[in-house]
């Protein structure tokens, strides 16, 4: 069943890639005029849920240096970002140009048919690797993939899990800290993907391990490092890159890593649409993607993984298990509430 869905999803994605790739190539011809127009616009406003992550800032600074165009970044949590855009547009105040947010959020805005406009093609989209592709409204930016964080003092090397199902070992009962899987967030993404990709009954068994739910991913990872719990799931790889020196290890399970795709979308009536395009194209430059890869994110264009640092590489090239989709979300959230009461 799960395999079937995966196949279908893959097919769907590939079809999308084929459909959108063609017009993209067609429109990029006059790119230099876009650059000219962008320089005339002089600035761009990004609504970002990256909360000023260092790799994000690095890429933005590089853009500013390269083009002499100012980037203003408004950092908000995802739900606040969406509400802010909604309110501003309802009030006829068009301030933001482009948003950087998880793909399902954009899907939602597309469904509402209001807040984002079609994204004109950008040249670097041609370099996107499989299965990523632009859609009418969104351009992929990077991948946030999740694994298992292990406390190396509490868990002997030979006991360290290699698979998601290793977490079902009775001896880990009560020793797993987890992001809450019931509300929207990384926890629910993991829930959905594992539900689809793991054998049936996986979550029911995992629930019997008496997971402890919390909601503060950064602090929770450190709680595991301090030895309060043996494991933390889902551990965003990129968030673990700055835990170097602590007695923890991130495991990318053999089945693969659930992930969230972060994408760009052009906001309706964006005051600086050309700069927005230029910026998005810049994010898809090899150098930009390498910055992301070196921070343990997975890049969305090809030919980057090979150039990543040695310690970042396993995560940059980690096997991707799947992402949550908008359509299945309500059902998944209900199921999570049922299983993890």
């Amino acid at each position, binding site marked *: 069943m799960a395999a079937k869905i995966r196949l279908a999803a893959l097919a769907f994605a590939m079809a999308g890639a084929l459909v959108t790739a063609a017009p993209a190539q067609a429109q990029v011809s006059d790119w230099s005029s876009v650059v000219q127009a962008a320089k005339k616009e002089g600035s761009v406003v990004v609504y970002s849920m990256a909360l000023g992550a260092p790799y994000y800032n690095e890429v933005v600074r590089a853009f500013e240096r390269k083009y002499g165009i100012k980037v203003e970044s408004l950092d908000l949590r995802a*739900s606040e970002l969406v509400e802010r855009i909604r309110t501003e547009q309802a009030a006829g105040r068009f301030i933001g140009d482009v948003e950087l947010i998880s793909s399902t959020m954009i899907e939602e805005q597309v469904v509402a048919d209001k807040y984002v406009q079609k994204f004109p093609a950008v040249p670097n989209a041609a370099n996107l690797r499989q299965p990523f592709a632009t859609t009418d409204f969104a351009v992929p930016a990077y991948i946030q993939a999740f694994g298992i964080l292990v406390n190396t003092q509490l868990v002997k090397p030979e006991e360290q899990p290699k698979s998601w199902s290793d977490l079902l070992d009775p001896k880990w009962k009560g020793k797993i800290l987890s992001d809450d899987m019931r509300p929207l967030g990384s926890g629910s993404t993991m829930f959905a993907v594992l539900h689809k990709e793991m054998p049936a009954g996986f979550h029911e068994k995992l629930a019997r391990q008496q997971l402890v739910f919390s909601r503060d991913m950064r602090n929770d990872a450190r709680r595991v490092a301090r030895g309060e*719990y043996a494991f933390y799931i889902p551990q965003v790889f990129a968030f673990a890159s700055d835990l170097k020196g602590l007695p923890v290890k991130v495991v990318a399970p053999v089945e693969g890593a659930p992930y969230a795709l972060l994408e760009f979308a052009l906001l309706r009536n964006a005051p600086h649409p050309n700069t927005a395009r230029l910026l998005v194209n810049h994010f898809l430059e090899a150098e930009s993607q390498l910055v992301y890869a070196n921070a343990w994110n997975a890049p969305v264009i090809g030919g980057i993984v090979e150039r990543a640092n040695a310690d970042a590489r396993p995560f940059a090239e980690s096997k991707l298990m799947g992402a949550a989709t908008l359509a299945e979300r309500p059902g998944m959230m209900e199921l999570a509430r049922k299983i993890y009461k």
Partner: protein
Amino acid sequence: MSAVDERRSGPGALASLRLRYSRTFGMAALIALLAFLSLYPVSMLLFGSFHTTPPGVAGAFDLAGYREVFTSETGLVLLNTVGISLAKTIPSLALAALLAWIVARTDTPARGVLEALVTLPFFIPPILTAMAWGMLGNPQVGAVNQAWRWITGSQAALFNVYSYGGVVWHMMQYSTPFLFLFIVEAFRAMDPSLEEASRMCGASQGQTLRRITLTLMLPALTTGFLLSFIRGLENFESPLFFGTPVKIQVVTTLIYDSINQRSVPEYEFATAMSFAVLALMCLLVFWQWRLLGARSFQTVTGKAYAPRLIKLGPWRWATFAICVLFFVVAVVLPVGQLLAGSMFRFFGFYSWDMLTLDHWTEAFDNSDIRRGFLNTLALGLAGATLTMILGGIVAYVSVRTRWQGRRIVDILAWLPWMMPGMVLGVGFLWGFALLPGPVSIYGTIWALLIAYVALGTPLSTRVMSSSYHQLAYDLEECARVHGAGFWRTLWSIVVALSWPSFAVGWVLTFFGIMRELSASILLYSAGSEVLSVVLLRLWGNGQSEVVSVVGLCTMALVLLFRWAQARFLARAVATG
């Protein structure tokens, strides 16, 4: 408002007519201002609670939000919330009253220092103390529990902070100093001969404390109780950190979920829930009005008191110990944890090779922090001053006059306090963005300033009115008889007699602004980042050590303010 007219008006019908008109006009202006600050954003939310979609989006009116509120499941969460808030407010109030009495009315050694110290926890961002207590009080490796195991040799944990007790305890750390600050001036301003009279009547110190002191403090105490109880219902960080892992659900986490964690943000339910809570709180406020309505305690007369302190003899060391103990538990433990944490590469990992000052240099070098700090400082100074002035006027009108409409003024000023911050933030967003007219507030720093004033006014009004409550009327009657107009009278009352309360309220408001996040994050724009937004960013990037540094610096700033305040007040008393 009416000051100019009143001052110039001589006797005569025309003058009295003008006076009446200018007063009516003044009240209308005040009501309009408050309505804009509080009623307007709240009515946006009210609309949202009856509408399937938020304002500005096509939708239909229905009662789905309220229908969902009136389910047994939500009812249980509500009961749970009330229980937790009661459980923290009652001991906090008792402790705060005890500490206030010790500091203000006894000869306990080093009272001045103790006063500054016991109020410190209020000024630490809750997210930091939550982190610190998570480390101190977790059952597996928490420092307190390890110390306990080491001392007793037992295997069990003394204390698990992830529990009802932990939630209550974390809330108490804020509500105790808050209540302390709120009531200590009332204790200090009380005429000591009221207590001495009781002792001359044969009552012991204990009887006097119970039957005179505490009863006289009733207005301040019940107001403090109410403020703190309501804040308890709206508290978010404590249940989020310590309740969620053990499946303790409260109203705020429920609202948070419904906005932030559902597949589609359920503003209709979130706002409906907020109004249900608001209704509950209104009942409480009416109860307090009824309780105090018949009483107008005036215990402060114009003359200055020689600070007559109760001599406790050897017991003063016991009271000293109580203050120190509170300080140790509520400040030294978590702040020590923060301080130690900030000196190591990773919070909570102590080894020599990880010892570093990088976080401190980073905090001071970080241009975002600097910009956020300067913005916040400017907003805080302006916001706290405006808020206190507005609060002073509102409290004056509602407590000290018999003007028509004063109750409306009071209710309007209360409103923002009764809405959970995260919902009210959305109300401001909707309100400012959808504000018609040529003057654009949205997206400017003024939006933040206005929101801060609105959010701060309930507290500033309460602080000032509990201070006014205790002033005898003849003081201002005297001022008015001597020809002072409304503004002059207000000014002389505020400055001359309620100055200490004004200063305390100012500090509370200032640091309230420094901490405010819910509204800030929805209203800030590029370039007007405030400190809390910058801190959220740092936190989101896992830089909790740098956040701790900023938190500790904030505390240093608090101490500086308190010191300046003490110095300034001492001088004001000496010269006045």
